[in-house]
């Protein structure tokens, strides 16, 4: 655990609400309030909790989509929270994010090739389209899609296919840390398993560290090494997958676990 790739200490992200009316008071919402954890290289840490507990905000803060209020996040020994947008830009290649809604996360006006080529050119991984197309084809193959889809537009694909393209957009940069924000929650249950297995396989094959944000404990159990349970902006319990699922300590974790829907046939035997 000493050489953690990402080490977060006392992270706080607060939002100010719009003042009600011209002179109304502004309220502070403490979405993330003092969160600390480490992710080792090649490890999958899941962040679970109910809606609104701040788990997505953690991910969004780490990718500079939200501003942090206080705390530290050391990535490879460098505090990423205090960097200016320009200083953070080269690091974006290493820290990538998979988004939740495959219908909203692809620009409907761009072809798949344009969508996947964009990050390559930003980070100078390809100098021209010929080079880019080779990389795009490789990555599409990696996520189980034919290279022929390059010239198509997002609306021609199903949700599962789109999410694969979203994953390809992340994988094409060969990141070190991937933040998956509810990456399979918007998909059909049957497709969820496929995409989840794909994410797990890619993560294992390339030794990526992953922060997997989800409210779905079944999914979390399948993919993670360690689990952190979040409640109202704070981590209430953290441990290996087995510790959390077999022997939950905190009352909230137990409540969460008991809320997993199960098929009732087994109760007859018990």
């Amino acid at each position, binding site marked *: 655990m000493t050489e953690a790739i990402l080490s977060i200490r006392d992270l706080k992200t607060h939002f100010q609400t719009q003042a009600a009316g011209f002179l109304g008071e502004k309220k502070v919402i403490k979405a993330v309030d003092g969160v600390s954890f480490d992710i080792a290289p090649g490890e999958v840490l899941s962040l679970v909790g109910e809606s609104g507990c701040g788990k997505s905000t953690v991910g969004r803060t780490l990718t500079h*989509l939200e501003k942090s209020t206080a705390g530290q996040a050391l990535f490879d020994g460098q505090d990423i929270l205090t960097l200016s947008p320009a200083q953070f830009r080269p690091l974006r290649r290493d820290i990538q994010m998979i988004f939740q809604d495959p219908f909203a996360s692809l620009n409907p006006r761009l072809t798949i090739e344009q969508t996947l080529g964009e990050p390559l050119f*930003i980070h100078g991984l390809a100098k021209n389209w010929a080079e880019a197309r080779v990389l795009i084809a490789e990555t599409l193959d990696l996520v189980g899609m034919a290279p022929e889809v390059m010239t198509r537009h997002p609306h021609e694909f199903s949700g599962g296919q789109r999410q694969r393209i979203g994953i390809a957009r992340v994988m094409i940069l060969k990141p070190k840390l991937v933040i998956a924000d509810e990456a399979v929650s918007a998909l059909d249950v049957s497709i969820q398993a496929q995409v989840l297995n794909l994410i797990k396989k890619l993560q294992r094959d390339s030794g990526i560290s992953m922060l997997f944000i989800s409210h779905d404990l079944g999914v979390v159990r399948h993919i993670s090494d360690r689990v952190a349970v979040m409640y109202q902006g704070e981590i209430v319990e953290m441990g290996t997958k087995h510790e959390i699922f077999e022997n939950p300590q905190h009352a909230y974790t137990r409540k969460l676990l008991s809320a997993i829907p199960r098929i009732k046939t087994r109760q007859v035997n018990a």
Partner: protein
Amino acid sequence: MILQSFKCNLFNDVAEGEVSGRSLWQEAMLRLRRNKAAMIASAILALLIIAALFLPAFLPYGYEDPDWNAFRAPPSIESGHYFGTDQNGRDLLARTLYGTRVSLLVALVATFVSIVIGVSYGAIAGYMGGRIDQAMMRFVDIMYALPYILFVILLMVIFGRNVYLLFAAIGMLEWLTMARIVRGQTLAIKNREFIEAARASGRSSAAIIFRHIVPNLVGPVVIYAALTVPEIVATESFLSYLGFGVQEPLTSLGTLIAEGSDAMEVLPWLLWFPAAFLVLLLMSLLFIGDGLRDAFDPKDR
């Protein structure tokens, strides 16, 4: 003929579409082609444009030369003055075609100006948000509050009467509404995940605005632009009618109608023909705008 060639295009596109995949733009165009009213309107507009551009060269009379044998001549086929002549013996058909040309040019230039300014302004205000947005949109509100006729008159007084100034003045007024529409659309788009994905992969704000936001505004912008064109033609006609528009001997549809209405009782054709042209032009532009709206709107995918 024209309709037939459209049909051919339709089938070609369907055949090609199955191979390479259609963009949203192509699908919208396909839907537009299925809209009969819009297609007939485009055919009429195309005829009007072709006539305005090329027909004057084949006419026996110029738009500014008097025919000394025919003052105030009613329309007739034998004399060659198909639309008649005005009080100075100038051929009305030639003048109407020139007027159409000027009106369309004003409309195109002013629409272009309003799109360029309005889209950039609105997209920047919407994407940046916060104080920048507030400041930019309050400026638009102030411009709205100024009566535009006063604005145009002031411009004319300062710089003198000039067709290009008219283009600029109308364009400068029309971009305000465009900016508001674009800002609203930008606000709706900017929180979509693909914008965040672009930010997460390190795109600069400028690149996000012009590569990710502006292309997604095509629908509303095209629709509004198509509806702006007739508005500008009408505004130009109105300004010309008031005497702020184009100068003699050059003419526009508005000027012609203004002159025609003075002589309505004795020389009615001076009013009827330019008015008919204006109505045809406005109607076809409106139908095309309507068709575009239907083509882009049905489903946001």
